[in-house]
């Protein structure tokens, strides 16, 4: 292959790679912050038909803070806060309140255990 052709192929390759990277690394803009824990109000995750309204909720705390949130559900299930291993039953149409200290760093899920449906992603920063 002549050096000109090599350069052409190289150039094309770079363009292809750039396009692929753009698609592949496209920012995920869909993760809506349905729940915010700023502003003093106790965040509430509403579950309708067994799914969290507005998608999986995000809550972020710093280590040592008090984690406090409420789950309102129209289905009966067990809410399991993984990592912290807190489990509480919720009745259909009822609500359940979680209140514990942010003692473990990391990213954790809370699920409706029976349905294997994630409702919350809890982030605890150091």
């Amino acid at each position: 292959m002549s050096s000109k052709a090599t350069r052409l192929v190289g150039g094309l390759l770079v363009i292809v790679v750039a396009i692929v990277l753009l698609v592949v690394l496209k920012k995920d803009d869909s993760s809506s912050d349905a729940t915010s824990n700023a502003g003093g109000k106790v965040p509430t995750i509403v579950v309708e038909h067994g799914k969290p309204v507005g998608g999986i909720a995000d809550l972020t705390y710093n280590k040592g803070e008090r984690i406090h949130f409420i789950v309102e559900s129209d289905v009966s299930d067990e809410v399991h806060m993984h990592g912290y291993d807190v489990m509480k039953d919720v009745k259909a149409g009822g609500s359940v309140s979680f209140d514990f200290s942010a003692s473990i760093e990391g990213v954790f899920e809370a699920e409706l255990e029976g349905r294997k449906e994630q409702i919350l992603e809890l982030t605890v920063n150091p």
Partner: protein
Amino acid sequence: MSFVLPVAHALVARKDLPIPAWLFAWGASIVLIVSFFALSAAWRKPKFEQERWHPVGARLSRALLSVPVQILCGAVGVLLLGFSIYAALHGTEAPDRNFALTFVFVTAWLGLPLFSVIIGDVFRPFNPWRAIGRAIGGGFSAIAGQRPAHLTYPERLGRWPAAIGLLAVVWLEVVYGSSGGVAVGLSPDSLGLAALLYSLYTLAMMAFFGVEKWCQTGEIFSVYFGMFSQLGSFGTKDGRLGRRLPLSAATHWATVPGSAAVVIASIASTSFDGAQEGAFKGGIKQVFEWLSEAGLSLTTSLRVTDTIFMALCFVGVGLVYLIGVRGMATVRGAPPLRKLRTGFAHTLIPIAFAYLVAHYFSLFVFQEQAQFTYLLSDPLGTATTDLFGTASSGIDFKLLSANAIWYVQVGALVIGHVVGLTLAHDRATAYWPDYRQAARSQYWMLAVMVAFTCFGLYLLSVANA
């Protein structure tokens, strides 16, 4: 129409926090500075091409490599495989409560690369398929009075079967297992079935091509763990245990065709697993939506999407390496392209190892607590057995702070980068008689390594963000 991607967590109750921006910046800067100094402090003669082999203690060697010990190790391996399959098929369907999943995908799959680097190829004596294959071969010889005849292994295939197998193992774990719609990860049932099928396939291949030949080329786990053992300084040679210059064995590892594909597959599959919930999340969601709108079921859509992205990772990592090799070929006095392509593949092994440590270190530490507490006492997850009285213990997630995990992650990548550069420079001095040309050729490998290391750092910085 909006889709919610099914979220999977097979075993993991906790995910790592993304490394903060400042640490990312520091890590990347250190990588660049180290690389700069590596260029100027270059040595002129190859140091790692010779193993400088020293046999150790003849008595110890004889004892450890004796036939009874080999039989014992083989039996332990077969027992563990058998028990894992049994637990997978007869234990609980909850992946995190079943011994098999953690044992196979964490203790063995992530633990053995680590132990292979530190103490040598420990998997080889415990390899259950090798043990069964040798037992059958021995039985055959005893009855037939002759050694079993084998087909000639097509040398051009080399380690390609292992490279493809490696992708298949990771695919089973992170693509097939994570895409069950309301996924909870790979079900123990599927793992048991896969292990049975793999055993049949492996024993058949061993019967065709011979036990040792297949272990060197096609048996996924032998090839994969064996690759990492090349980095360390302990090994066996001519029936003796011995010590060699660390990293030196790696310089001869890639001469078998397809070896580059094995190490690229390793980097690619770790990258994919690290990126699927972070860097690739948006892209995966996009393709997933296209496919499900085109009429595929949700599970199929996600599996196909993940498969595409995993294949993209393999092609991407391979391309970066090949561009580096192509670049080196333009330097005056370069050996033929083919030789370069195999000649520098081993320089990626430290990068592959660094990726493993960076992505799975915390998972390994946390999940091993489960392995040695409740999964050992109640291996089937039936909640009725408590063999060692540890069935109700759990994982202490406070064992590692987020900071400790971050430093290990960035440290692993930086060290892997330096070791990779060292091996590449050493190989260049062996290939180019003129050290100035050798140094020039290494601008290309340097670019490859910087790309991999910074990509690794980037993946950690956007993990599940």
